[in-house]
């Protein structure tokens, strides 16, 4: 007889180690899926959760992120060929933001290196990248490390209260290790919100203990789980890019050059041409010399109607289309109508108009709104970069 008890088991998404606590708090039962895991869109209300990030602190379950350990004598050489930044000067206990490209310089994914983390499965590409190196071992840690992003102005205070000594001395992109309930807790000062925040990495067996300790310490500091919708708001204010919004992962792109290069995505600072060789170098060098056709640009847009999926024009009469909006929202904290957009580079200095479609009580309306190019992120509080972060 078949031992399978739940005939639908295979149809169900996996639960992260934090799931028992998170499902209890997910009053709206709003779940979607990320890399095969059940994953919260929101718990109570997205805007409420968003303000927790900006005003207090919140946790965001990043266990579904893909995590790889790359080791061996050739690991550095292999990674240094794969990513566009020079990681040969990588220091211990530092997190480095990187991206990697196809031979044609099209961006496959971005991620961070301490172990390697990224949003989408990358094992096949890592395997291809490691081919020919004699001493490289790739371990997929995705299901063996639980991770919780912990963001917001009071986050440092909560960790302090939890007993993580000298956590306030941890610099942005730094890593500290702590003992926790007989196991190890790794804390990196990283995040996807543009604010003060940390990411906590732990053995899945200790995940619930970590959750309980964190929520006990955070009770008086407004701790709250937040979901994908709030994350997406916060990251847009910070000017961070999102796959399937700002870029198509090159290996999942069907149409020729419907993927992007890091230069187009305004990630030129990640591309180190002083490095003699890395994947996509020749193609990117050619693009750099020629100038990119498009450039990802931050826009401040007149009015308050989000310019979602808007076309951009160089004139109010819409005679010349010069780009399109990739993400847009009304920023509650900045009180601005913000957007990220791909705009033809040669039109960046001219007028930019967005054609905004919106609905007013079932009527489909459209209006033209003037756009201003912003050089800096919309939200970049001093505490995000300060060490110690200072009082909340």
């Amino acid at each position, binding site marked *: 007889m078949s031992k399978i008890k739940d005939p639908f088991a295979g149809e169900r998404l996996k639960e992260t180690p934090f799931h028992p606590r998170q499902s209890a708090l997910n009053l709206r039962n709003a779940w979607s899926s990320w890399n095969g895991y059940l994953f919260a869109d929101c718990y109570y209300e997205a805007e409420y959760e968003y303000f927790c990030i900006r005003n207090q602190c919140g946790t965001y379950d990043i266990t579904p992120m893909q995590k790889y350990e790359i080791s061996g004598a050739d690991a550095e050489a292999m990674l240094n060929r794969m990513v566009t930044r020079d990681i040969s000067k990588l220091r211990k206990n530092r997190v480095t933001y990187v991206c990697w490209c196809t031979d044609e310089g099209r961006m496959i994914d971005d991620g961070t290196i301490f172990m390697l983390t990224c949003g989408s499965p990358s094992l*096949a590409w890592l395997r291809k990248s490691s081919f020919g190196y004699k001493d490289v071992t790739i371990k997929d840690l995705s299901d063996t490390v639980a991770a919780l992003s912990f963001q917001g102005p009071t986050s440092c205070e909560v960790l302090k209260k939890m007993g993580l000594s000298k956590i306030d001395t941890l610099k942005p992109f730094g890593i500290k290790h702590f003992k926790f309930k007989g196991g190890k807790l790794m804390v990196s000062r990283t995040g996807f919100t543009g604010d003060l925040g940390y990411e906590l990495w732990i053995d899945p067996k200790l995940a619930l203990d970590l959750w309980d300790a964190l929520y006990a310490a955070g009770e008086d500091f407004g701790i709250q789980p937040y979901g994908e919708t709030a994350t997406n708001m916060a990251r847009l204010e910070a000017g961070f890019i999102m796959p399937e919004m700002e870029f198509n992962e090159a290996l999942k792109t069907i149409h020729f050059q419907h993927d992007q290069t890091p230069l187009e995505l305004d990630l030129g600072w990640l591309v180190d041409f002083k490095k003699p060789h890395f994947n996509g170098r020749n193609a990117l060098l050619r693009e750099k010399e020629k100038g990119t056709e498009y450039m990802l640009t931050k826009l401040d847009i007149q009015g308050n109607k989000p310019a979602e999926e808007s076309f951009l024009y160089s004139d109010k009469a819409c005679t010349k289309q010069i780009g399109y909006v990739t993400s847009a929202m009304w920023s509650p904290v900045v009180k601005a109508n913000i957007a990220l957009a791909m705009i033809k580079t040669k039109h960046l200095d001219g007028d930019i108009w967005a054609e905004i479609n919106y609905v007013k009580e079932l009527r489909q309306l459209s209006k033209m709104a003037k756009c201003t190019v912003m050089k800096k992120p919309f939200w970049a509080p001093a505490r995000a970069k300060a060490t110690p972060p200072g009082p909340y």
Partner: protein
Amino acid sequence: MKKYDAIIIGAGHNGLTNAAYLARAGLDVLVVEKNDYIGGAAASRQLHNGFWYSNCSYVCSMMRQAIHRDLDLTKHGLVLVPYLGTVGFADNGDTLISYHSEGPEYNHLRARSPHDADAMFRFQTDLARYAQLIRKTLLRTPPDPTSFRPRDIKELIFLAREFGTLGQKEIYEYIRFFTMSAAEFLEDYFEDDLIKAAMASPGIIGTALGVYSPGSAYILLHHVMGDVDGNIGAWGLARGGMGAISKAIAGALQEAGGEIMTEAPVKQILVTNGKAVGVILENDEELHANIVVSNLDAKRTFTKVMDKKDLPPGIYDKAKNFKIRGSSGKVNIALSGLPKFTNVPDNRYINRGGQAFLGSLETMERAYDCWKRGTWSEDPFVESVIPSAWDPTVAPPGQHWMSNFIQYCPAELADGPWTPEKRDAFGQTVIDKIERYSPGFKKLILHAEIRTPHEIENEVGLTEGNIFQGELTIDQLLFNRPFPGYAQYRMPIKNMYMCGSSTHPGGGVSSACGANAAREILKDLRRKNTVPEDDCYDE
């Protein structure tokens, strides 16, 4: 005596489509069919009490939605419903279940191989890219590469330009994909044997090639380039069986005033002064028409229903050499209940999908080796589906019919002709194989219809029982299909056309061949084109 504008030989789905378009353009059209039922290989037949077998073709994904909409097939009763994923079975009973949504699918693959779970994204992306390019050609007439006529040059430029949109790297990848073997192509993506076997299996269906034969990667694409409602690679079932498709097209034909004559086998196409003028039926009745369209395969058309004397030199040999190898069998089974499979969760979603008894790449290749030696494998590749699990109209309540497609089954046996005993032994091999994965399966069997290429040829009229009306190898694709110089549906005899799957774009229940031929006929008659030229998808 009555003279039709056009006589179409064979009421398969392409013949009916062709006739429907001609009738809608105002032509007086007659379809003659040898059987007492219409549909050819797209038929639903009640061969056991209350059980309607789609006894040849059994699933549908290539039906062009433009034709479906244009001929208003829904009004004529056609409902195509996508079916869920398929369970692949390995030799050792291991199963690969394809789940309908990305998350569970990823998890299931990941449990077998995290590498392959990731690689699957790239594989699906690449296949979609290849499929999109080829799909654009389906409702177009292939150009003649030797011609300097403007329309051929225009069409060649169209193809070159579409090819060019792939970008340099993908142009080369495409050529590679188009020419190599399914198994070797998959090496670049996957490491897990069962995943490879499952992905490779469409590469052999209906074809006299093995998973290791160059060219099988294209066959794979031919089977996954279809779609249901824009989901490339999805498969659908017609409510009421495949006959519902033919019935709906016949409905459109009759609504436009076309006639269908069943039990009217054609003995010969009448040719006078180098022009086709009609047909003689087996009962010696003569039917006259200005145009004769053959929906029979190219080999049958020129070697069986035409007088060699009527043909220009060389055509008979071309037809004789046309590759139309029979390699598939079919076992249709009426069951008293829904079979249960080992290592498969018994849930409603999985039960509504298909089963693929794969074994491994080697099992499939060895089955091909048997075919080459004129016998069938004791361990053949079987692709099954139980349409009654979701279609209430094809079996009595609580009972089921199961369609089993077998690769390979030779058209000619090394030890002499097919006999009923050999046919039954072949069927038993298939049933025994299924029993291994579904203990108790045999006890459920109420009735079985076993079809080797021999039965398929005799009943449906497909030479050697080849399901595509001719192999889908490069020498018989696009401007080479069916013969170089005759790929634009016009045949060497004046006023004679072909509209079957022997023509571009080939086999599969797509209606594209019939529609394309109608477009060319209307062009020759200087009538306005009413046949859709693309499939109206934005991809």
